[in-house]
């Protein structure tokens, strides 16, 4: 079971991500963060719950929607925000933008916006752990559409046949941009596919951070011990548009009831309920935390926005190491 202290930590991690994402959403119209953004609002619990059980040497790989994974794994928020502003202090010095977040010191190996492209890279990190006899694991965050790419199957096969310490975490938010999973995949394929590779497969509620942290703890320990890949499938929902800062419910590609259901099951609200009912934090302190986080991170955004680009000029960028 997750201790009170850790429950609080999970809450603070989630609140931090939510706050930062909301500030991006508010400030995007200032037209200073000039790169595509894919906000994680509604999907943060998975990143927080899983990364709760990882150490700095464990590696994660992510995709276009990488903010939550990056922050949950301990990625430097200033470097992330600077990257959105195109600043030289960004994690990739302004070269990558929002879809290439990484932090070497924190075990965030790579985020790649081409769907599924980072999967084999994560498998490679797992391969390196086994090769060097390290007790670390690689976690591969993917969405439901990733399983439509050929390289996904190739990668499952490698992870299994080479017995690699890899955890696949599939966040099913039902949509690939605007296209529903039912238009893209045979029914329940996503639940069966990893099993058919002989992998232990788990189904979890993607909006319950505490439960995810609890259940994945055991899974991750088992992977460390046995060098065998496992697969977790989690249902969740993206609250805002696929790419950009706004809601897009007026486009009517998603069912109104469905939207309502998932908004009521917001991972932050869920967590707050747990905190209050278990008397870990009071309602008023939750309100205070929300306000103080907002203030704190708004100041960081303000700072980053003012920052000047002092990096290498294009002509001086080295092509080779």
């Amino acid at each position, binding site marked *: 079971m997750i201790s009170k202290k850790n429950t609080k930590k999970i809450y603070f991690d989630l609140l931090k991500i939510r706050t930062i994402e909301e500030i991006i959403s508010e400030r995007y119209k200032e037209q200073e963060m000039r790169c595509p953004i894919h906000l994680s609002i509604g999907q943060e619990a998975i990143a927080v719950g899983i990364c709760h059980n990882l150490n700095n040497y464990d*590696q994660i*790989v992510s995709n276009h929607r990488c903010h939550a994974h990056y922050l949950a794994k301990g990625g430097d928020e200033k470097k992330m925000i600077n990257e959105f502003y195109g600043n030289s202090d960004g*994690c*990739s*010095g302004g*070269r*990558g933008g929002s879809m*290439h977040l*990484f932090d*070497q010191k924190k075990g965030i*190996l*790579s985020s*790649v916006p*081409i769907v599924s*492209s*980072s*999967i*084999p*890279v*994560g*498998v*490679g*990190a*797992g*391969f*390196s*752990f086994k*090769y060097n006899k390290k007790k670390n694991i*690689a976690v591969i965050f993917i969405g439901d559409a990733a399983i439509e790419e*050929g*390289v996904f199957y*190739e*990668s499952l*096969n*490698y992870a299994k*046949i080479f017995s690699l310490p890899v955890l696949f975490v599939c966040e099913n938010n039902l949509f690939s941009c605007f296209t529903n999973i039912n238009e893209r995949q045979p029914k329940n394929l996503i639940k069966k596919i990893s099993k058919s590779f002989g992998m232990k497969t788990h189904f979890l509620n993607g909006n319950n951070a505490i439960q995810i942290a609890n259940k994945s703890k055991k899974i991750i320990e088992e992977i460390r011990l046995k060098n065998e890949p496992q697969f977790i499938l989690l249902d969740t929902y993206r609250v805002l548009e696929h790419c950009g800062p706004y809601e897009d419910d007026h486009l009517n590609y998603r069912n109104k009831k469905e939207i309502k259901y998932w908004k009521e099951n917001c991972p932050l609200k869920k967590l707050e309920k747990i905190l209050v009912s278990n008397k870990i934090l009071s309602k008023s302190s939750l309100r205070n935390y929300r306000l103080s986080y907002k203030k704190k991170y708004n100041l960081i955004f303000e700072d980053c926005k003012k920052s000047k680009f002092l990096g290498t000029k294009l002509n001086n*960028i*080295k*092509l*080779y*190491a």
Partner: protein
Amino acid sequence: MPKKRILTASQAINEATIMAMKKDNSVYVIGEGVNDPKEIFGTTKNLKKIFTSKRVIETPISENAMTGLCIGSAMMGLKPIQIHQRVDFAILALEQIINNCAKAFFVSNSKHTVPMVIRMIIGRGWGQGPMHSQILDSLFAQIPGLKVIMPTFPKDFKGMILSAIKDRNPVVILEHRWLHNIKGDVPKKYYLNNINKIKKINNGHDLTIVANGYNLLEVIELKKILKDEKISFDLFDLNILQPLETNAIINSVKKTGRILVIDSGFKNLGIGSEIISRISETCMEKLKSKPLRIGLPFVPTPSSRFLAKSYYLNKKRILISILQVLNKKKIKNNLSKKIKSNIPIDVPDLSFKGPF
């Protein structure tokens, strides 16, 4: 003078791989067939025996994920040598090569490196056909972040592969199947050959020739015939396609005033097009005759030897091109007659009996 040590190119590749693996535990070999009885044309011979299957890894037929796996492991500090028995299979991995392999260093603000070697074997002859004999040199050379090399001589195979393995960047090695059995002096020691700057391998006055791979050997064989006519040439071994360093070629053209570039791949949009563009931009006024590029015609490779006959360049066609650049058409027929060959068009030498 130390005694010469004659090895084939495939033996040289094998020796280089063993040396690198002995020197550095993080080097591993991976690919479809690396442990099979054919041993990638002898180039992976004995590797499994010496280094076990932990470091010599037979794989599923999944080039794209295999490449991603290599990239991920390289970003974590390992040094994979990935092998494709034909370039054409590597195309399945283009997404990983172009996105992750080539860009990791750039997109990580120079923090990640991908010290990875990808050996891709170019097929030719014996009916290989359109999907077993592509060269795609300019395709890979088009991608910033990759190094692309194409050794010809056994001693370069060894030294350049050792350099490629040691290099912190991803290096694509285009390896011509017809060069595997070429013999040459290969020093026994560990040594590194430059993979950043091409070299002039012959000095002359009348024209500048740039060639690589099998064509380069054909040019060298023409040397004597041309010498008899008192024709000499500067010859560049274009064994490094990226970084493409052309200053030495340009300086040579300033001296000779004449240039022939022989592409191993397509003439159309080939490396030769880039080299001649650079020459045109920098020293057009020094040219005494039109620059010339030759290479493969812009059609897929046909399988039949009757069709392949006019597909590939050969000594005679190269000679005619040289004479064209020199404006010496008169001696053409005379010299062409001196080139005789009893070797069929679809094999590198008479010992080659197929099938692959």
